């Protein structure tokens, strides 16, 4: 689907969290939580892949496993030619310069006891990138780049606003000059106007630094502004993967359709049909049989096959993949 060799390639990634055993380790083992099961995708250099799904669908686990902040159970991840899970600690440390993460919670992602300067200096120290005045210059350059006043260098996180903190988080990620950034709901905790500013900043940075993004979010509206391709996850699995334009124009999976119908339209007179899903997300420890989405699926043609046979992720149109038995007859 992509002409260029991918910068990031995720192949059949699996992460299960064992739930331990009942009765303090004596009873039967409880079923593991299947946070990520058999996920594969590629991201071309300089592109943004949006990753969307409800809370608890495994998007954050996926993001962290790709960066090996969590050890995987199976699968392979190639970032910039390096096999992330096969690396020994020194090699992994070197690779960490090329892949970074920005977290959702701007309160939790900065050490409350380190000033902005200290936070930004640490990566330079770890990777021995700069010393003395040069280090100071680089910190100022980073602050400039993310649109923060240089005078904030001495501030502590609790003295900053949410948007400022998030900019510090972005500056920290950029400090080691990565090629690949995982943006783990990087704008979800911000209010709408700040969200737009940070999104613009991220888009600028991508242009300027030729960055590749994995942009994780829980709503499709935000992803639309930044993503080239979009992946939709449900219960640890990819249900749809398509170029952004195609996905927004004609979603193939009923889950994507319902997510799209939840995107608010800024027009009070707009007449539209909201497609509200019934029920909650099932527990990832006990996923439903067949198509995991079938108990909540609003597709009119839903039948016995959905309950028994798991649909494979297959190419429906050029570059557009979906995991639905009725992907050829999408809703609406």
């Amino acid at each position: 689907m992509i002409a260029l060799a991918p910068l990031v390639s995720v192949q059949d990634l699996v992460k299960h969290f064992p739930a331990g055993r009942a009765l303090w380790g004596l009873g039967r083992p409880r079923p593991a939580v299947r946070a990520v099961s058999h996920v594969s995708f590629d991201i071309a250099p300089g592109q943004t892949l949006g990753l969307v799904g409800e809370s608890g669908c495994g998007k954050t686990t996926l993001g962290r496993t790709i960066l090996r902040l969590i050890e995987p159970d199976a699968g392979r991840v190639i970032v910039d030619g390096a096999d992330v899970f096969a690396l020994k600690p020194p090699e992994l440390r070197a690779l960490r310069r090329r892949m970074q993460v920005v977290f959702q919670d701007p309160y939790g992602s900065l050490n409350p006891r380190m000033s902005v300067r200290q936070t930004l200096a640490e990566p330079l120290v770890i990777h021995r990138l700069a010393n003395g005045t040069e280090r100071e210059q680089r910190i100022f350059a980073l602050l400039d780049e993310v649109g923060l006043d240089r005078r904030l260098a001495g501030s502590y996180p609790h003295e900053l606003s949410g948007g400022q903190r998030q900019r510090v988080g972005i500056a920290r990620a950029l400090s080691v000059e990565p090629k690949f950034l995982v943006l783990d709901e990087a704008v979800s905790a911000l209010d709408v106007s700040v969200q737009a500013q940070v999104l613009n900043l991220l888009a600028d940075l991508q242009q300027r630094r030729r960055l590749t993004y994995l942009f994780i979010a829980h709503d499709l509206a935000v992803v639309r502004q930044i993503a080239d391709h979009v992946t939709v996850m449900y219960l640890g699995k990819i249900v749809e993967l398509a170029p952004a334009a195609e996905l927004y124009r004609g979603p193939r999976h009923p889950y994507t359709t319902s997510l799209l119908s939840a995107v608010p339209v800024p027009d009070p007179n707009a007449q539209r049909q909201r497609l509200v899903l019934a029920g909650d997300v099932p527990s990832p420890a006990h996923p439903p049989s067949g198509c995991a989405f079938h108990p909540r699926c609003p597709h009119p043609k839903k039948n016995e096959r959905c309950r028994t046979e798991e649909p494979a992720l297959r190419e429906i149109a050029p570059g557009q993949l979906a995991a639905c038995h009725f992907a050829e007859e999408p809703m609406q």
Partner: protein
Amino acid sequence: MNLRATLALLGALALALFVVGEARRHAAATPARRRFFRHRPAAWGLFVLSFFVTLAIAAPWVAPYGPSVTLEIVTLKNQPPSLLHPLGTDLYSRDVWSRLVYGSRVSLSIGALAMLVAVTVGAVVGAVAGYVRRWVDTALMRLVDVGLAVPRIFLMLMAIALWQRLPLALFVLLIGLTGWFGTSRLVRAEVLTLRERDFVAAARGLGAGPARIILRHVLPNVAAPIIVSAALGIGNVMLLEAGLSFLGIGVPPPLPSWGNMIADGAAQLATAPWTTLFPGLAIALVVMALNAVGDALRDALDPRREAEWDTDGATL
């Protein structure tokens, strides 16, 4: 009391006042110091501590007599406080004030050193157990359970049985090495919540090793409970030292400690109460001062307190 000792005492008082005054004068300089002095008892605590520390350092000048000089065993024993002997004399006609001054050296340094050992071991064990988890955590915490289950006093008695006369350094080490269990639990609990925070994940993502994460990201964020437990712990160690010396297994006489001074005077509590009253008062004062300073430090060292104080502090 002679002129030199009186002047030295006045000097010590003046120095303690000067320390508090200077600290207060610069209090506005940093938010941490501002928060420290917002605790009213903190200034008193600081005063008491600097006074006793000065006494300990300047003992030869402040004390009119040596710590174990017997002046006149017949006429000068168990004398009540007077101008010449401001805190009286004890059973062996030794000047109580002089012994109190020299005793502060022993008692304060035992308290500080033993606590330093205890807090260091406790913080490192707690941080490692909480951060590494798995079997390391299990092993260390079972060790702590055992440590908490064995009464300290029995360990001391065993040590006495082994060494007859316990060298002071060993005594300090023993108190320190039996006093870290509580701290390690405290630190571990904090570390368990901290290690799940995103800034720790961010540090790992940046390539920081476990040592850097524990030292730079985890321990600074548990500094508050560590310091509070250290400040309270010094007081506890001093009380323990007093108790053990009272039982005759702590600081060996004639070396004065506040604990064995109380022990020496206990027999004539009814006839010469000053021999126990003043060292007891000294212990109580220092322990209270440590508690006040510990409390104030907890707030001073936590930058997140600033906002809380600015809103709540006004109403308090």
